Structure formats: structure tokens, C-alpha cells
């Protein structure tokens, strides 16, 4: 069986940044496995600009952003396999994968970095009544068809869901000559970034209907129209509010779900809120030497933060491998058993945190804790409590579920609280 120090599952933004970081931290023997025909992942179809403001201090398109990292991977001579599908990973890190050249094969990994990204919530998962005609696409599928294959999925479009991909596709379809009649959003707020509402909807006078959903799809062979209805506070359609729209296409942009079939199969503990692995301060899962980063861990809005997170995962995977290769005493010293872990406790408006636990002995000097809120809060405070004591109380004009939040913790700060058990993160109203 072939062996690699680090095997990275997925060659999108997370996998690429993790690979570069692992190499820069001294690991030579790295393999990236990618199922598509090229590296870069979803960025290849995200042809709009706005990527990289944090990482490169300039606005790039998706392919350009991916291109920067692909070039680094190439320049560093990091190995990768395309058209390669990972079927399974065992808990002792044997990766089973297949491709056309090699058939089915196994690789023993020293460390594994999970970077599989996420997929879109499908119509089936949304339970929309009606027939199953042609013309219903996830927004991402339509994006791939238009931007990479050069096909238009339809001419008269309704979009359900105001996530960023839906908003971006509203503009893209309009530019390509389609009529986007309405974007409907179940929630009373948009799940997308504000700039996308301005640039993709307002610029083109596309109406956004909040607290609305599709209650019927018409047409047997091809979509002929949909029925939109207003929903109440619980998301239930209100009788009598139905409106008919004729259209030949319905795009769904109703959320992204981390793609963790492989993680579950190998016994990784999952966080039910994020649908991603539970990780510690090193972005390591409950299985030692298995790390996760990017959208497979939790869905991000900004690729810059994916790259940043992946860099951390890559560095920690490199450290893990180096410790494995050092003597066993040293390895025992690094075992996570010995130091008490601090549990992060998201409450009152905070839905989750990444990481879920922090071992202060192992943490870097600075640690970014990322989280999402469960609703829109104006003039509020993001508060952090070390056990009972409030240590961070940061005023925020507005926080919303569509925009990931973060707080910074330092090792120095945590070391001042020996015996600290719980760090509570919450939203406090002013």
C-alpha cells in the first residue's frame, strides 16, 4: 500500500490552502485527491468578483483566486490526483479511492485533512409539492451550466432562497438575457451578503420577497409556473396570499450542507448544528490526526476565511505528523488526554462555534473562534464569558445569520484562568 504523510480530501480552496500550509510547515509527502477534472473546486464556476479582499488585498474573481493557490501548489510540487473519488476512509486512516487509470486503490495516510466542501440542499429536501418537471435546478447547477458549460437553463426564472448563490445567479441569468421575475425567501431576512442584494438584485430591479415560499410547481414536462405564498412567523404558508408566476425555470438556493458522508463513515463526531465535524483548537476531529477545514467543517460566506482556516488545519496536520515521527515520549506528551479541554458553549443567539473545544496547552498564541447567530440583532453586544466572568463585550451595530462572526482569543488570556471549564459566547441586547 502507498503511504503519504498527509492526504487531503478535496482540491478546492480549503484543500489547496491546507496543502500549501502543510508544505510550508515542513511536510514533503502530501497528496491531494480531487474528484473533478481540475483543481480549484467551486471557485471555478464563481466567475463574479469580490474574492480575496482579506487574503490578497484586491478583488479577484473565483477562478483568479483559485488560480493563485493552484500556482502555489504547482510551484511547491505538491502531488495531486484529479478525477479521483474517495470512497471511504477507515478510522486508522486508510483511504480507499478510485479513478480510471488506477481503478480502486488504498493509501495509508499519516494524517488526513477533510476538505470536501458542501453541497446544495435539493428540492427533495425542501418538500415542495407539485410535479417533477424539467426546469428545476439548484442555483449552483445553473451556475455551472451557464459559466462553465455555456448553456442557459431557461428564460423566465423564479429563484427560491436568497442565499448568495441565488442572488449571484439572479444577476447572471439577467445579464445573459433571462427575465428573473422574483427572488423569494422563506425567512424574514436574506441569507445572503448585503453587497449581493445591492449589486445583484437592486441594480437590476429584481424584487426580493421576504417571508415567502413556493407552495406549488406547475407543469408536467417542463416547469410552466409556480405559486408563491406568504408565510407566517413559523414558516407556514398563509392561505389567501397565493400569487401565480409563470416561468420555465425554478432555481433553488436554499442552503448548503457540508458533505460529510466519508467523515461519518470513519467515525468522526458531528455537530448537529453545522452538520460538520466537531473540532478542537487545532481543527482536529475526535479521531487523532484527522483535521477538517472549509465548508466541510461549517459553511462559510467568504473564501478568505476558508483559506485562513485551512492554513491552520494544514499547519496543525504538519505538527501532528512531525510529532508522530519524533520519539514516542514526545508523542505521549502531545496526546490530548493530559490537559483539560475548555468547552465552548454557544447560547442566546449564537448557534454554534468552531472550534467546539480548546486545549489551552496546544493552542496557538492567537485563536479565531468563528460562529453564526440565529437571527438579526441590532445594536447588540457579542459577549464572551470565562465561566462566570465576562471578558469580551463587543458592540455590534448589526449581526445577521448570513454573515459569519468571529472573536479572537489569546493563549495569554486563557492562561490567566487556570481551571477554566467553559467559555460561553452569547449575544446580549443593548
Amino acid at each position, binding site marked *: 500500500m502507498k503511504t503519504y504523510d498527509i492526504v487531503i480530501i478535496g482540491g478546492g480552496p480549503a484543500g489547496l490552502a491546507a496543502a500549501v500550509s502543510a508544505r510550508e510547515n515542513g511536510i514533503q509527502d502530501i497528496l491531494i485527491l480531487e474528484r473533478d477534472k481540475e483543481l480549484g473546486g467551486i471557485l471555478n464556476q464563481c466567475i463574479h468578483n469580490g474574492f480575496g479582499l482579506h487574503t490578497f488585498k484586491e478583488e479577484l474573481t473565483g477562478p483568479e483566486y483559485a488560480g493563485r493557490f493552484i500556482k502555489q501548489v504547482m510551484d511547491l510540487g505538491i502531488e495531486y490526483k484529479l478525477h479521483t473519488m474517495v470512497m471511504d476512509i477507515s478510522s486508522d486512516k486508510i483511504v480507499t479511492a478510485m479513478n480510471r487509470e488506477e481503478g480502486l486503490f488504498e493509501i495509508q495516510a499519516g494524517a488526513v485533512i477533510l476538505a470536501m466542501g458542501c453541497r446544495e440542499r435539493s428540492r427533495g429536501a425542501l418538500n415542495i409539492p407539485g410535479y417533477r418537471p424539467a426546469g428545476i435546478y439548484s442555483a449552483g447547477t445553473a451556475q455551472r451550466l451557464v*459559466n*462553465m458549460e455555456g448553456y442557459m437553463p431557461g428564460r423566465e426564472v423564479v429563484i427560491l432562497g436568497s442565499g448568495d448563490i441565488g442572488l449571484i445567479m439572479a444577476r447572471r441569468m439577467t445579464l445573459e438575457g433571462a427575465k428573473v421575475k422574483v427572488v423569494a425567501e422563506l425567512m424574514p431576512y436574506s441569507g445572503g*451578503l*448585503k*453587497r449581493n442584494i445591492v449589486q445583484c438584485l437592486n441594480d437590476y430591479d429584481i424584487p426580493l420577497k421576504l417571508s415567502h415560499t413556493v407552495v406549488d410547481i406547475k407543469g408536467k414536462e417542463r416547469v410552466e409556473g409556480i405559486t408563491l405564498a406568504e408565510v407566517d412567523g413559523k414558516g407556514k404558508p398563509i392561505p389567501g396570499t397565493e400569487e401565480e408566476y409563470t416561468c420555465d425555470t425554478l432555481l433553488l438556493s436554499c442552503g448548503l450542507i457540508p458533505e460529510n458522508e466519508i467523515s461519518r463513515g470513519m467515525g468522526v463526531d458531528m455537530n448537529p448544528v453545522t452538520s460538520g465535524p466537531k473540532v478542537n483548537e487545532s481543527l482536529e476531529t475526535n479521531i487523532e490526526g484527522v483535521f477538517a477545514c472549509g465548508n466541510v467543517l461549517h459553511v462559510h460566506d467568504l473564501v478568505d476565511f476558508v483559506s485562513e482556516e485551512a492554513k491552520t488545519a494544514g499547519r496543525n496536520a504538519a505538527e501532528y505528523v512531525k510529532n508522530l515521527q519524533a520519539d514516542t515520549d514526545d508523542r505521549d506528551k502531545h496526546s490530548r488526554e493530559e490537559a483539560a479541554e475548555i468547552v465552548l458553549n454557544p447560547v442566546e443567539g449564537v448557534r454554534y462555534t468552531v472550534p467546539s473545544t480548546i486545549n489551552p496547552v496546544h493552542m496557538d498564541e492567537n485563536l479565531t473562534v468563528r460562529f453564526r447567530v440565529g437571527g438579526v440583532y441590532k445594536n447588540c453586544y457579542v459577549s464572551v464569558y470565562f465561566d462566570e466572568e465576562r471578558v469580551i463585550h463587543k458592540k455590534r451595530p448589526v449581526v445577521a445569520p448570513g454573515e459569519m462572526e468571529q472573536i479572537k482569543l489569546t493563549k495569554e488570556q486563557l492562561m490567566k484562568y487556570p481551571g477554566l471549564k467553559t467559555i460561553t459566547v452569547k449575544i446580549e441586547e443593548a
Partner: protein
Amino acid sequence: MGTVTTRELTCIGCPMGCPLIVTMEAGEVISVTGNTCKRGDVYARKEVTNPTRIVTSTVRVSGGDADMVSVKTKEDIPKGKIFECVKALKSVEVPAPVHIGDVLVKDVAGTGVDIVATKNVESI
């Protein structure tokens, strides 16, 4: 004294999306508030006088390892020229190879701005 008017905008300079209030008098911007950084001020002043956008799209490629290559306007163009710009790209087909930064169309739709490739497409 001209009439003082205000316009509310959402800054698109970064994902923060700051709510901006632009106060104008006789077509002149007198103040911008609500921004957290310089970009908000610059955006607001431009948006009320001469709104511009970077336009991204695709053009066909012949003989390459992909059928389409993604492109963008090298700089932002007037908002009113967006459709003309995208229309001008419909009939364009370029031969592979194409590399990031290659100029594929010069002076698109009379804007003085070039269309450049944002992806590499190699010949096959």
C-alpha cells in the same frame, strides 16, 4: 442655497455592508456617514455621481480543454454600460490557449476598458 437631500446606500466595498447616508446639496456631496472605512466614503460619493461596476461574464473558447473562459472588465465601467458590455461578448470566440490576464476584447462597448481572461484554458 440648494435643497439638501439625503440618499441611503448599502456599501458594497466589502462584506460588512455598512449602511451609508449621503447628504447632498445642489448635486454636490456634503457628507457621508455610516461608513467604517475610507472605502465607504469613496463608494458613496461615486455611487451618487457616477456609479460603476466590474462586469464579469464568459466567452467561448475553441480548441481548449474547456468550452468557456471566464472574463472581467479590467476596470469598472459605468453601470449604464453593463448590458452593452455583456452583449458585445456574445459573439466573441477566442482560440486556446488563454491565460489569466490576457486581453480578449479591447475597449469593450466604447468604455475604454479591456476584457481580460480570469481563468487559464489550455489547448488540447
